[in-house]
Structure formats: C-alpha cells, structure tokens
C-alpha cells in the first residue's frame, strides 16, 4: 500500500513539473488550452492548435506583443492533449488553472468538450475564448466567461433559406442526426422556414453512425419537396447523396449542413456532388477583412506559409477566437478577468473571420452564416451576397435529367 501512495505522489510530481515553463518574472501572458491531439477529434484538434499557434507567432513577432499599461507582454500558450474525452478535458483545464496558473483559456475543439471545459472555467472565473463550438446550449447555462466566435448552430440555415425563399421555394423536408449540433441546426431550420414562409413537410431523425439512410430518402421522395435539408457529419453527407441518387429522389435544392464545404466531399463524390448547398462558417474566398490579419485571403496565405496547407474553418475560427481575446485585452488595457470580460462583451470588430460581436451570453451574434454551392466541381460561396462571388443555382436538375444532359453533351461532341 505504500506503493500506492508513492504512485499518487508521482502523479503529483508529474503534474507540477510543467509550471516551471511559465516564469512570471518576465512579461508573459500565459494562456492555457486543452486541445485534442489524439482521440476522435485528432484532426480538428490539430487544425485548432495550428490556428492558435499562428496567432501566437503573429503576436510575438509581427505584432510585437500586447501592450498592457506601460508593459509589453509576449504570449505563451500551454497545450495539453484532451484525448477527446470529457473527463480528461475537465481535468486538464483544472490543471491549467490551478497548477500552471494561466491568465486566460482557449477552448478545445467540439461543443461537447467545450461544455466540460467551460464548466471548470466558470468555477474558477477564467475567461475562455472558443473557436470550435457552435451548439446553442453552451450559451443557455448562464455562464459569463465563455465566448465563441462561431455563428451559433441555430443560424446555420438562415441565409440559405432566405435566399431560396426569394427564388420561390415553398416546401422543405428536414433530416438530422440525433446529436446535439445537428439537432440545434434542425430546430433553427424549422424556425427560419416558418419565418420565410416555407412549409415543413416532414422531419426525420437518425442515430449516430447510421449505415443506410435510404429509408428516409424513400419517404421524402413521395412528398416531393422543394428543399431538402439534412446532415450531421461528413459521412452522412455522402450517404444522403448516395441514397438520393439510388432512390431517384429529386429535391429542387439539396442542403447538407456538414460536409459539403469540405474539399474532400467533391473528391469522394465527383460529379454527384454537383449543385449541393452547404452552410459554412468561413471560406478563404469570403470577402471579409480586418485590422489584424488583413483579408480572408491574406490570412489563408499566412497560414499556408506557416503550415503548408490551406486553413480549414476550424483553424480560422481558432485564430479568430485568440484574436478576439487579444483585442479585448488591448481594449481593457488590463489582465484583470473582470475588465477583459467587460471588453469582450463590448467588442465589435471586423476581422478576417467576419464581424465579432458577443452578446450577454457570449455567442457571436453579428456574423452571418455563409453558404456554398458546388458548381463545376468548385466550392463557391453563394450566400450572403455581399461576400460572395457566385450566384445561387435553383432549381437544380434531377438525377435523370443530369444523365440525359450528359448524354446529350457527349452526343454533340
């Protein structure tokens, strides 16, 4: 049994070691982040981390640090791997606060992990900026320290439904995965459909990791709706397209809430991906700009130079979250939680990621959701019009028409 106690103290020794890194005597703002390096969010976690890192590099080098009072601070981010598990996330956030004594926190990727993390941040009254969570329920818990730059899930389909209603779409069907985020999107969709005068003909749910969605499309086929809105994960997007083609289900517009804006989608589906709509938090082709990283395209270029790949919206969101914190510290001219929180709430800034303006609950209320459509195998931003380069294509041809068009085209060649 002394062995057991010994092991406890080993755990203690291991966990106190890392606090040496943040030496308080030099002027450094330490920021803690538990982000997935392994586990189910490993890929998005890597993007998030790279987004945070880009900001850190930029502040410390080009930005020349952050001025607070008459002192100049460098920033340093302490990372831990949350392993995609809520238990581990909670533990690491607590460790960042109590042992590493960080000044501020950056959130993990995913709404679920952010829920665990933000509860700890709330308890210790530390500000947490998130660039990877959009579930509405994060903001209904009465927390005052969580701020997220993403457009909340409820707003995902607003802009596209508005655009489609002006084009004459009248009826809509919704299918969504029965997990938090898609549920929020679907609830929002029903709300917006009503607002823009569309009739919701049917709503279907399906569980996570579903293998086959053809029962849903065959049900929808008999309703013959104008708009189909569906999705939850990247893979569901593929399954829906496949099932729609297989059952010859032809809505006049097909909106897939997740996946369509991912370049991999076009790669996987080829021609079948044509005309599909998808909401997007951010694209480098969007026409946004701000004081700090310039335009969206300039940000993308900077990211490309540092990491050798194009930024995903997760990466851009992460940079934007860190940037929001940065601007708030600047404005507050203080590292005090209360002052920075006030500055966060008052923030109203144009950035490369779009406008950032947090409401009382911490969600970003000013950023509209963009929508892309896949046209000529290209992901093109079509909505909102102010920041887009292409036009909404509606109604889209059915599966059989496309085949006929193809054969006509090949005959005429």
């Amino acid at each position, binding site marked *: *049994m002394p062995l*057991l*106690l010994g*092991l*406890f103290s*080993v*755990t*203690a020794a*291991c*966990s106190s070691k890392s606090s040496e890194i943040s030496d308080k005597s030099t002027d450094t703002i330490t920021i803690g982040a538990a982000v997935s390096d*392994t*586990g189910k969010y*490993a890929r998005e976690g890597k993007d998030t981390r790279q987004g945070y890192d880009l900001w850190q590099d930029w502040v410390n080098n080009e930005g020349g640090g952050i001025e607070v009072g008459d002192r100049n601070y460098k920033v340093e981010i302490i990372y831990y*791997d949350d*392993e995609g598990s*809520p*238990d581990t996330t*909670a*533990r690491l956030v*607590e*460790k960042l606060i*109590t*042992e590493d004594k960080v000044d501020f926190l950056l959130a993990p990727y995913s709404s*679920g992990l952010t*829920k*665990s993390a933000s*509860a*700890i941040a*709330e*308890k210790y009254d530390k500000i947490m900026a998130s660039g990877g969570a959009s*579930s509405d*329920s994060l903001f*209904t*818990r009465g*927390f005052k320290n969580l701020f997220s730059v993403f457009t909340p899930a409820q707003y995902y389909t607003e802009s596209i439904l508005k655009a489609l209603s002006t084009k004459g779409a009248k009826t809509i069907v919704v299918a969504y*995965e*029965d*997990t*938090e985020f*898609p*549920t*929020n999107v679907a609830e929002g969709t029903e709300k917006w459909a009503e607002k823009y005068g569309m009739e919701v003909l049917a709503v279907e*749910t399906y*569980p*996570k990791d579903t293998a086959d969605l053809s029962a849903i499309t065959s049900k929808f086929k008999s309703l013959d709706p104008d708009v189909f809105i569906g999705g939850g994960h990247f893979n569901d997007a593929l399954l829906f397209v496949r099932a729609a083609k297989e059952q010859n289900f032809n809505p006049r517009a097909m909106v897939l809430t997740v996946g369509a804006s991912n370049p991999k989608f076009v790669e996987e589906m080829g021609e079948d991906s044509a005309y599909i709509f998808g909401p997007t938090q951010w694209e480098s082709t969007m026409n946004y700009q701000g004081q700090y990283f310039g335009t969206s395209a300039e940000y993308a270029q900077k990211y490309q130079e540092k990491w050798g790949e194009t930024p995903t919206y997760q990466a851009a969101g992460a940079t934007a979250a860190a940037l929001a914190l940065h601007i708030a510290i600047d404005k507050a001219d203080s590292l005090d939680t209360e002052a920075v929180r006030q500055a966060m709430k008052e923030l109203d800034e144009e950035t490369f990621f779009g406008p950032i303006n947090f409401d009382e609950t911490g969600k970003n209320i000013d950023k509209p959701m963009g929508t892309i459509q896949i046209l000529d195998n290209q992901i093109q931003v079509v909505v909102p019009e102010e920041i887009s380069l292409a036009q909404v294509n509606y109604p889209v041809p059915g599966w059989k028409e496309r085949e006929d068009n193809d054969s006509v085209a090949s005959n005429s060649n």
Partner: protein
Amino acid sequence: MKNFSKILSKKWGGLTLWGSLIFLLSFYPLTGASGIQLFTATQIFLWVILASNWNLIGGMTGYLDFGHAVFFGIGAYTMGILVTNSSLAFAPKLSFWQALPWTGISAVIFALLIGWATLRLKGAYFSIAMLSTFAATREIVRILRPLTGGGSGLDLPPVLNRPGEYYFMLITMAIVVSLMWWIRRSELGMSLVAIREDEVGAEMRGIDTTFHKLFAFAVAAFFTGICGAFWAWQNTYIDPDVVFFQNRNIIMIMMCMLGGLGTVWGPVIGAVLLYLLQDLIWSNLVDYHLLVLGVLLILLIMFIPYGILGALGNYDTASIVRIFKTSNKTKAKIK
C-alpha cells in the same frame, strides 16, 4: 508480494489493511493537495467502485456482464433528469442529495426487470443479452427526447467541489469494498460462488439461485447507478454517447481480469493499476490504449486467467481457477 497476498488472505487482514488505507486517504485533501490531484484520486475511486461491482456479478457469480455500464447510464440520466428542469410534471427540481437515492433505486428497478429476464440465460447468452440491453438502452434514451434531451443530452448545474467529491467517492468506495468483503464471506457469497461453480448443483442443494443472482445483480446495479449519477454531476453534462460509453464496459472487465476475477481485492488492485498505467505511462500513446488492453486481455486469458492475485496464490482465487482450467483441480487448495 507473497506476504502481501497472504495478509489479504487472512480473515481480518484485508479489511484491516483496507481500513487503514481509507483512514490515511481521508487526510489527503488536508495536505494541500490541489484540485487536480483530488480529481485524479476521485476518478480512481470511481473505477475501484465500478470494477468491484462488475466483479460481484461477473467474477463471484460467474455471469460475464458485457453491458454493465447500462446501470451507469441509468444512474447518470436519473440524476440528470431530476436535477434539471425536466418535463416530468410530478418531479420538482431536486438537489444532488435529494436525487441521489433515486438514481440508485432506478438502477435497481431496471436491474430487477432486465435481470429477471436475462439471468435465466446461461453463459454467452447472458453476456450478449446484456450487450444488447446496453446498446438498446442507449438508442432508447436517444429517442425519448422530451425526457432525456435526446442526442443533445442534458446540462447539469455546474457546481464543482473537489474536496467534497473526493470524500463522497472515498466513503462510497469504503462502503462498497467492505460490502464486497462481507458478501464474499457471508452465506450469500458462498451461494454465489456455488452458483458460479455448478448452478444446477447449487439449486439441488436448496439454494434459491434466482433470488441470489437477482440480489447480487441489484446490489451491483445500485452502486454502479450511484457512480453514474456522481459522474453526471461532476461532468456537468451528459449525452447518450458519453454516458453509455462502450469502453467503460471493456475497462471494467479488464480491471477485474488484471487484478483477479472473483476476489475481493483483485478489482481494487486492478482498477488502481490500470488507471495509473493509463494516466502515467500511456498518456502519450492514447490511441494505443485499447489495443494494448485487447492484447493484455488475450495474454491474461491464455497465461494467467486468474489475474495478479491468482498468480500470487490468493485464497479467494482458489475456486475461480476452475472457471478457466477445468482439468487442473489441484490448484484449488482451500486452507
């Protein structure tokens, strides 16, 4: 190590050691341990309780329960529903302490219902029925959206109190393991082992097997439900996938197999060792955890099916040896 095993085998030896350990551990928060250290210790206690409970039905009674985490989920959801503004008209919003007894009770009721049906099944049939129950319950919780929040889950009030959590789990663990110690030596425990060894024989000798199995199942469910409720409270957020988590089943089984199936102290040792291994040694190799566990499981079955305590020749393991080695009865020397 042999001496250690001998102490555990003595009648009061194990319990005396256990009492002293709990006594020592109760001072840990007073030594200025940080929130995170208390949290880590609390997690270990949680796993010790879970493993001990699984062992009651899986090890002592010989019914390999591949879906025991279902009770964890029932407890967690009962807690979640009772402490949030649920749509249950008759249930007012309760506090943690008010809700806690109900979490255990609902797990017991569920256990009696499902156990009445599944415990009549033998061997693999029981295992697979429980695995199905686990998966089916997860999906049903998803469908019952008005009650459970569906796939979006429930947000519990974020009240965190690390020392409080520490003592709560420490006391629960002390109770559970002492209870296991008592059960193992009581008439009830003997009957359970008899059922494991030869159920038909036990019945012929007048043991009410159905009652004993159900009783063990209900006890295991009760404390697993309490653990689930505690986890839900401490995590402040539950959804079907984090609560009905398949790996929790796997890890519970592994902890018992590692320490020594069917013994009182095996699950305790197995849980502590496995948790510390995961936390200290493998924390850089997270993606390999389960792979290593799978390989370990096969090696244990092939070479030391009776776990660490069994390898040390512990008294408790004497009869479990026969579960895995029918031919070699000489190992079963009972003092």
